[in-house]
């Protein structure tokens, strides 16, 4: 009996209760920890979606979509060090796959359509990753930029299949019957998008904590050392491309449902640049940073739009003011937070925690 007591206290737990050991079990396993966090966030979003209006649900869907795309891009760019200016085009692949599938059979199951879009975009990412595996830095950026410019042109050129500039319309997904006939379409799509985002983030978080994540970082930090350690550099770079393409495909599929349209105008070079902005502002290499970046991307244009109309300016100025304000805020944000919002928060939190620790006496001392 006494040996058990000794065992428990030696185990380092100063919470010798059953809940304490469950908490220890969860905290030490990344999958359980991330999953628990995701469940808590999901519950909070569920409650939130009932409290707010349909337009906020609509914006929440947009945030979730960009969070998925930004998370994939931050794995590629932040964790693996490959710059991609072409992720808007990969989102277009996902969106058009969804649009064409629904054009073929309008009542396909949403999760099936999303899965096929992810697969098709991942395969596109595979081809592109293999082609670009030997390129570094500005050369890779240039090649991905051509992807961003050329892919929407395919839609215009083969306009009989892809419906040209007008695009392919998509009906909004209906909520399942058990939610009631009048369930808000915006709220249903918000639930689907947030669920998809949480699943993606949990999977990516686990991936980054595993040997794959370590290999990605190793290849980013020092290719020669990684090769000497036995990591296949080319294969790792392609894996990063495929993962980020799959995320872009999922985001693109949801984007098509969200807009109700798959048209080339929605996937210009600007979209690819906006995703880059999102991950830099949010915090490069950080998944939570991808979420901050997505929030920034969706919420700031709304604010700048209403600011612009608040002053009575000539129309040539007030029409273009939102973009000018966006640019100015961007510059200020990068100056104040060079490591992104998440970097800034971590630093502030770290400094705060250090100061708090300084004032508190250490446990067990004296």
């Amino acid at each position: 009996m006494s040996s058990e007591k000794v065992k428990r206290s030696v185990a380092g737990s100063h919470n010798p209760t059953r809940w304490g050991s469950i908490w220890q079990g969860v905290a030490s396993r990344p999958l359980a920890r991330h999953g628990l966090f995701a469940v808590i966030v999901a519950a909070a979003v569920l409650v939130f979606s009932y409290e707010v209006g349909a337009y906020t649900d609509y914006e929440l869907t947009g945030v979730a979509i960009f969070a998925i795309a930004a998370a994939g891009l931050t794995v590629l760019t932040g964790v693996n060090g490959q710059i991609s200016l072409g992720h808007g085009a990969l989102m277009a692949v996902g969106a058009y796959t969804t649009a064409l599938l629904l054009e073929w059979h309008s009542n396909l199951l949403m999760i099936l359509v999303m899965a096929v879009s992810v697969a098709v975009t991942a395969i596109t990412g595979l081809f592109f990753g293999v082609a670009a595996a030997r390129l570094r830095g500005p050369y890779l950026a240039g090649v991905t930029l051509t992807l961003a410019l050329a892919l929407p042109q395919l839609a215009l050129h083969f306009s009989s299949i892809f419906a040209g500039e007008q695009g392919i319309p998509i009906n909004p997904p209906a909520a399942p019957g058990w939610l009631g006939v009048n369930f808000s379409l915006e709220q249903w799509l918000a639930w689907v998008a947030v669920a998809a985002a949480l699943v993606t983030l949990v999977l990516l978080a686990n991936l980054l904590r595993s040997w794959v994540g370590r290999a990605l970082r190793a290849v980013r930090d020092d290719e020669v050392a990684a090769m000497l350690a036995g990591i296949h550099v080319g294969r790792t770079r392609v894996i990063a491309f495929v993962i980020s393409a799959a995320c872009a495909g999922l985001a693109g599929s949801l984007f098509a449902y969200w807009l109700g349209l798959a048209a080339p105008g929605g996937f210009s070079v600007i979209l690819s640049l906006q995703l880059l902005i999102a991950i830099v502002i949010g915090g490069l290499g950080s998944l939570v940073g991808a979420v901050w970046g997505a929030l920034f991307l969706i919420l700031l244009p709304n604010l700048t739009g209403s600011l612009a109309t608040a002053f009575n300016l000539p129309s040539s100025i007030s029409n273009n003011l939102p973009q000018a304000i966006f640019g100015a805020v961007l510059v200020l944000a990068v100056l104040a937070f060079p490591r992104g919002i998440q970097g800034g928060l971590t630093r502030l939190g770290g400094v705060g925690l250090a100061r708090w620790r300084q004032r508190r006496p250490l446990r067990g001392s004296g």
Partner: protein
Amino acid sequence: MKRRMALRWAALAGLAAILAACGGATGAGKKEASAPGITPNSITIGSTQPLTGVAAPGYDEIAPASEAYFKYVNAHGGVFGRKINYDYLDDGYNPSETPPLTRELVLQDHVFAMFSALGTPTHLSVVSYLNAERVPDLFVSSGCDCWSEPSKYPWTFGWQPDYTIEGKILGQYVKQKLSGQQVGYFYQDDEFGLDGVKGLDRQIPSSSVVSRQDYVTTNTNVGPQIAALQAAGAKVVVSFSVPAFTALALLTAATLNYHPTWVVSNVGSDPPTLAGLLSSFSKGAAGGALVAGMISDAYLPLVSDSSNAWIKLFKGIVQKYAPTLPWDGNVLYGVSQAYTLVQALKAAGRNPTRATVVKILETKKLTGGPGLVPLGFSQKSHLGYEGVEVVKAGASGSQQSAVSPIYVTTNTGKITVYQGKATEPGSSGVPSN
């Protein structure tokens, strides 16, 4: 170091405040009333317009012109005491920008109705949504015949003559007055251009059409298309294009020393707009002179006809309430559309709901507006003006004059001459019923 930390805290606080403000601005969720957008003092209507982008030249004047007319009406008692609030947002003529803006208008701003939403490809991206949400979608600024499907889109109504009707009447003019000459088509590669071509093909024999060239709004290089029309020997070019692309086509043809007779749809042929675009695209080398002799069509009084009572009324209103706007076809369009909306709102009575406005448009004939022909709304058709007259730009390229009687037709029926008389505005300038 400390200053940097302070800056970071300040920026974080600012960011949090911004996000909180955005969250607060969207408002709590509440179910919509039977007449959203209507209060005892106001009616709120919404629109999506190309205020920036490739379609902005010319078209960005339409919404401010409508707003000028609403200000006039508001200053004269409004609609049964309610002031009209016009909330229009910029979608840049990009069909991917229109859906979020439309949802903002419907879900956040709670507009009573959409009005004058501009663009064929842009509005096609939201028409199903608006009808699913049962929002009156009045007087779409586009002539696509897609807006007249009462069984599929019961809440959507056109206003301007549809492109197929325009194509038929212009095609008949080409067949009769420019017979024997080879014809080329230049059109936008979407429903706008395709509907116009459909109408043209119903009149112009296919043996006369030697070349069909299309363009997309994202590619401003129309050299290949104009060169192809020249190489095919087209002496007449019929164009369904937005003003910027009409100007590009004219300029490109001039640089290639190609001078066909231009026949251009009403939406892309306004002489003052074209003159301004030609001058700015060519950096002053060319101007309105390139527009001389251009054939087009009209369904409203001519912009330059200062003896017309409607022109006098509308020009005065624009000069008073929107003095920065020029006086041209786009401004006339915006004011006339606003007049029709006020007619519709007044006809719906003192307590309008979304359903009653739609019903009144289908059952009551709105008469007495500035149009040369009647509006064709009924339970079976949501098409707007039923026809046009053909006009020609003068030698200076700045004024248009009529060169044909006023015709009316349907998409598939015969073309007949309209026998009705033009109406005069009432003394107040506000529709009486």
